[in-house]
């Protein structure tokens, strides 16, 4: 009787404690590299770099040097990087490709969701484009951009990012539009709205949270993308991930600057994870759970 009651009232105290212990361990494992990296980004470059916690002088020099703002001081060699350009490239490329993906994806998604264009098959075909290995499309896209003289430009990346962003946007947005009841649009159309007006003035405002979540996810996908950026751009036109990896070879072991670069790279991610957790989870698990 007692055993039965305990089972019904949930797991026992010991197993609950073990559960919390595992979660704490998992969180330490997740946060450890990030904390060390942020810590390194605020350390003096010229230091001995031993982990002597007693002699840490926090400094912004790594960030200043990364953005070309550090001043020479006696005895300290300052390398000036052109990270501002890389930062700008990342912002521009990610923003424009997000706009493309959402504009095209929402049209396609609406059509899939409302008119059932192509049935379930087309929806899965579109998603399956995401399965394609980027390295397979990288070679033809590289040759095409070379032919069009677009290598080392924003447009090469914006073009390339459509390969995974548009299918992804279509699939995720179709899921969000499916949740909007057709009644609202129908009553709007009875009141004289065209299909287009019903879409832009009724469906989109209702599904706006989903659209924003999709946009954030796509922005992050582009922001984090490495392979295409690495193959299609170099130094002046490079995005942050490419510039950060280039720091390894060009400047020897620059833990301070590389750490600062990575910190800059992951800040948007950290903000998004905490602010938009609920919607991101929805956007990421679509389809998998509904099957």
């Amino acid at each position, binding site marked *: 009787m007692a055993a039965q009651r305990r089972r019904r009232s949930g797991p026992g105290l010991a197993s609950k404690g073990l559960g919390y212990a595992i979660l704490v361990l998992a969180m330490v494992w997740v946060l450890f*590299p990030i904390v060390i990296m942020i810590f390194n980004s605020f350390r003096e470059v010229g230091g001995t770099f031993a982990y002597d916690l007693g002699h840490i002088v926090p400094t912004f020099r790594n960030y200043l040097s990364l953005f070309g703002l550090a001043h020479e001081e006696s005895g300290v060699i300052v390398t000036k990087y052109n990270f501002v350009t890389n930062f700008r490239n990342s912002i521009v490329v990610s923003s424009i490709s997000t706009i493309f993906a959402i504009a095209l994806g929402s049209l396609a998604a609406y059509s899939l969701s409302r008119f059932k264009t192509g049935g379930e098959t087309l929806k899965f075909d579109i998603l399956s484009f995401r399965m394609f290995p980027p*390295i397979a499309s990288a*070679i033809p896209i590289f040759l095409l951009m070379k032919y069009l003289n677009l290598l080392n430009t924003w447009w090469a990346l914006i073009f390339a990012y459509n390969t995974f962003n548009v299918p992804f946007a279509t699939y995720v947005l179709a899921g969000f539009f499916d949740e909007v009841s057709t009644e609202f649009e129908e009553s709007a159309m009875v009141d004289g709205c065209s299909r287009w007006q019903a879409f832009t003035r009724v469906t989109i405002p209702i599904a706006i949270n989903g659209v924003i979540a999709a946009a954030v996810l796509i922005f992050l996908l582009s922001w984090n993308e490495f392979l295409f950026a690495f*193959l299609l751009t170099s130094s002046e036109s490079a995005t942050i991930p490419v510039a950060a990896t280039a720091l390894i070879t060009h400047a020897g072991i620059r*833990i301070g600057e590389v750490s600062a670069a990575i910190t800059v790279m992951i800040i948007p991610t950290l903000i998004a994870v905490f602010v938009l957790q609920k919607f991101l989870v929805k956007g990421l698990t679509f389809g998998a759970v509904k099957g």
Partner: protein
Amino acid sequence: MIAPALIVILVVVIYPLIYSLYLSFNSLLLTTPGKQQMEWIGLGNYIDLLRDDLVYISLKNTAVFTIAAVAIEFLVGLLLALIVNRGIKFDRTVTSVLLIPMMVASVAAGLMWRYLLHEQLGAVNAVIQWIGFSPLNFRSDPLLAMPTIVACDVWQWTPFMFLLMLAGLQSLPRAPFEAATIDGASSLQTFRHITLQLMRPVILIALTLRTIDAIKTFDMIYTLTRGGPGTLTEVISYYIYRLGFWFYNLGKASAYSYVLLIIISVLCYVMIRQLRAR
């Protein structure tokens, strides 16, 4: 309304794929300036692949990496999801923290771990030395290179498994569990015969998605080991990259990327059949 998106998909996705298929039957070397035009060689590139030792090495490395990483990610992800699903305090914060790695750029993850595991300057080796052992060369030791790559992939992608498993657990119906409790099933029996059975579709999808992504791994290899030491971590994507952009043998690189495409398509097909079989 679907037309604009389909046209873009046709241009940016289908065109490169068709062109790459065409390329795979041609010889195109960018090394010699005078000889850049394509030459039809039929199955020449594919035959060349069959004779290339590095192809077999990269296939083997990719298989080892994928199986190890996906298995660990699945087991740990499921365990964490089961713990969170039975109700914990601060579940929103815990979930957020556990999701961070999968949202971080894989380049950032690779670089973070590269410096964390650095021979002289890394925090991990600082701890190892402080305990009194000699520092380990995680990235260049033949015995440690592959486990290091797997560990980094586990760091980054266990959250994905956790997320899908948690969503799956939360969508399970209640009735079968209540029936099992009334029938006096032990929690292990309930887990084996009800939870796992009902979760089968989600588990299949999660395993397939992760497997496909792991087979395509490139960023982590580039930032951590560049295929080394020797060819111990040379995976398919990395070898295709080297064929295309180191040796400028674009025909052979395209042929190998088509082999990769076929491997992935077969996996997708098997998964869809498994799902339909239910």
